[in-house]
């Protein structure tokens, strides 16, 4: 199924929410720690009384979803589908801590209620009174991808639908400290512009909330479509990845020669970036290649940032980073192939193109 992108909205560590300055004004991460989202004035989207009870990730998710609805001029979608790797962490931590500090007595239920992963999708539905299909996926590096897969399936079932699909993840001080102990992040100072040059263990953590309105047919003025989505869990080394990418492209009748830009999920982690380097000097050897995690950091649903960024490039014809592979860009960038993997285990391949 081909899905047409009718609208987008994204909160990220960059100035991406509306006309805030991306891509001319890039926020460069430097130092220790993680990349945090630039947050908008939530009162423009959420009633302040309701916002007071919401955690940061719920506000981030709901406001980007509502902005996406507004900008795509679809007030009532037929389905709301979200993906999140870790859900509403802050409220989970809060409730867990209160169990121990209050010795299980007189606990405030609000953080418990808002700790489940479907809080955001439920709150969006509640805000617009949408009784349609509603689902939330959570599978590490397939969290956003599963939501998108479901959205494409919805369009296969009924082409006339409008599907709101989004991915979000937050990072908190606690989750950062725990995932640091698990060895996921770089333990040295990081200059974001050099993220891909360190050749050290670990990546740069990030977060974000991105929503897309997808429809089954093209409408004038909104001319970017998702031509392909392929997921594979576990791969048997670089040869297998190579073979699969070739096979998937062939299966969908896509000539690799016709792709204008390759976007790879380099995270700066030397334990898993070699997959990308192999592709860059292998099947994509003659292609211009760019990355995206220096802009948004690494997180379970980071491919939602990539999808948005590819859409943005096709619409605005601006690649605002140094190319990782300096093959010349064509006159027009009409198609972008994204390949991303999470820690070498969850692999996803997307093709976006102007139509």
């Amino acid at each position: 199924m081909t899905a047409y992108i009718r609208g987008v909205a994204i909160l990220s560590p960059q100035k991406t929410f509306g006309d805030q300055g991306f891509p001319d004004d890039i926020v460069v991460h430097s130092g220790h720690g993680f990349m945090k989202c630039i947050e908008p004035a939530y009162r423009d989207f959420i009633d302040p009384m309701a916002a007071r009870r919401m955690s940061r990730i719920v506000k981030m998710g709901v406001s980007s979803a509502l902005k996406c609805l507004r900008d795509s001029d679809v007030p009532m979608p037929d389905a709301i589908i979200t993906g999140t790797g870790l859900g509403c962490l802050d409220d989970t931590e809060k409730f867990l801590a209160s169990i121990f500090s209050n010795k299980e007595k007189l606990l405030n239920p609000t953080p418990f209620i808002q700790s489940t992963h479907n809080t955001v999708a439920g709150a969006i539905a509640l805000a617009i009174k949408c009784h349609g299909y509603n689902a939330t996926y959570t599978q590490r590096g397939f969290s956003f991808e599963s939501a998108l897969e479901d959205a494409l399936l919805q369009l296969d079932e009924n082409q006339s639908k409008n599907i709101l699909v989004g991915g979000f993840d937050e990072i908190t001080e606690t989750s950062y400290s725990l995932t640091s102990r698990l060895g996921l992040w770089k333990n040295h100072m990081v200059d974001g512009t050099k993220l891909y040059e360190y050749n050290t263990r670990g990546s740069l953590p990030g977060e974000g909330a991105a929503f897309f309105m997808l429809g089954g047919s093209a409408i004038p003025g909104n001319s970017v479509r998702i031509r392909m989505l392929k997921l594979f869990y576990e791969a048997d080394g670089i040869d297998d990845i190579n073979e699969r990418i070739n096979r998937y492209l062939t299966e969908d009748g896509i000539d690799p020669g016709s792709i204008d830009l390759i976007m790879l999920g380099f995270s700066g982690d030397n334990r898993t970036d070699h997959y990308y380097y192999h592709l860059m000097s292998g099947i994509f050897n003659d292609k211009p290649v760019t990355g995206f995690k220096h802009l948004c950091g690494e997180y379970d649903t980071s491919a939602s940032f990539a999808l948005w960024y590819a859409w943005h490039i096709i619409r605005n014809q601006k690649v605002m980073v140094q190319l990782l592979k300096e093959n010349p860009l064509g006159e027009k960038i009409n198609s972008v192939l994204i390949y991303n993997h999470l820690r070498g285990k969850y692999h996803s391949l997307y093709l976006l193109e102007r139509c």
Partner: protein
Amino acid sequence: MPKVFVTGIGIISAIGSDAESVRNSLRNKHSGIGKISLIDTIYKDEIPAGEIKATNDQLYELAGINRKSFLTRTALLAIIAAKQAVVHAGLSGKSLADAAVISGTTVGGMDRTEVFFKEYLKNRSKGKIREVAGHDCGDSTERIADYLGISGFISTINTACSSSANAIMLAARLIKQGKIKRALAGGADSLTKFTLNGFNSLMILDRQQCRPFDENRNGLNLGEGSAFLLLESEEITGNKKILAEVRGYGNTCDAYHQTASSPEGHGAYLAMQQALEVARLNPSEIDYINTHGTGTKNNDLSEGIAIQRLFDSGIPRCSSTKSFTGHTLGAAGAIEAVISILALQDQCIYPNLNFTERMHELNFSPSSEYIPDASLQHIMSNSFGFGGNNSSLIISIN
């Protein structure tokens, strides 16, 4: 579009660690709800729950897995049920490799996280970090896939208490559209201090055995468990024994309140109606409803009104088997789908325990006795969750 057939089932819950023992408990009215013995909580003697009376060490043994694998209780339960479903369907090795695994869970590996947090909160550098590595909901699904050697599409749904009903629904939709041929679909959740205290803080845990659809009901009992269905496209089942067909499904959002259901059960009504549409059945063709029936004031009223509105003149027999298993949260939809399949096989209706007085607002009562000679072809199974996530499945035999 191809039909979606069930060729294997697996289940572990407070009333048994396989389909046969669950069936016997249901027939003999043996509830699994009782005193909590495995969780470290001040409510041990006060709040009953449907706990599986096996330590994690015993579950490792039951699953045939080395303890060094370091699994959460949720993952252990999930692997035990998933393996049963696969064996039941007579599948192994290569025939499984490209299957999908789609699971539902609400708190994933919280059972280990809360053990970790106790130490961690005292000192931020303490606690065994391995304990939280399986915290996320995707962990148990990944563990099933890795254990069974599956490398097809894997995913997890968390729509609170309707999670595994939605997992079954997604698998069925993927099979119908020809995207996949075979899937393990179900869910798992273990009992945790987190959920026990969460539902307790909402003041919806009954201090006695829960009484679904009773005028004097006073809340739910939590439970734990896992169930999986092996679903196959009719294109590949050949002469294999078909246990049932996933014939209909509906997913809607109540969009009324973060936790409470609308008084008229709008979302529930729409989900059941959609499931009937997909199944191409009239309400009168449903022979039995395995209700969500948690035993809370709010759910049973809202669900009851929705059933009354949709089924109008002829309300099918119905019961809540949560009075046996407790509310197993993310696993509930799959556990109740398996129970529905057992009911279809045995042509019987399992009772709704602890029922004495009809709710004043309703004109029907649940079946409170085991009915061995029911004639059943189509069963509806409801699962409703926080966030307004309502789902309904229709499971049939020919």
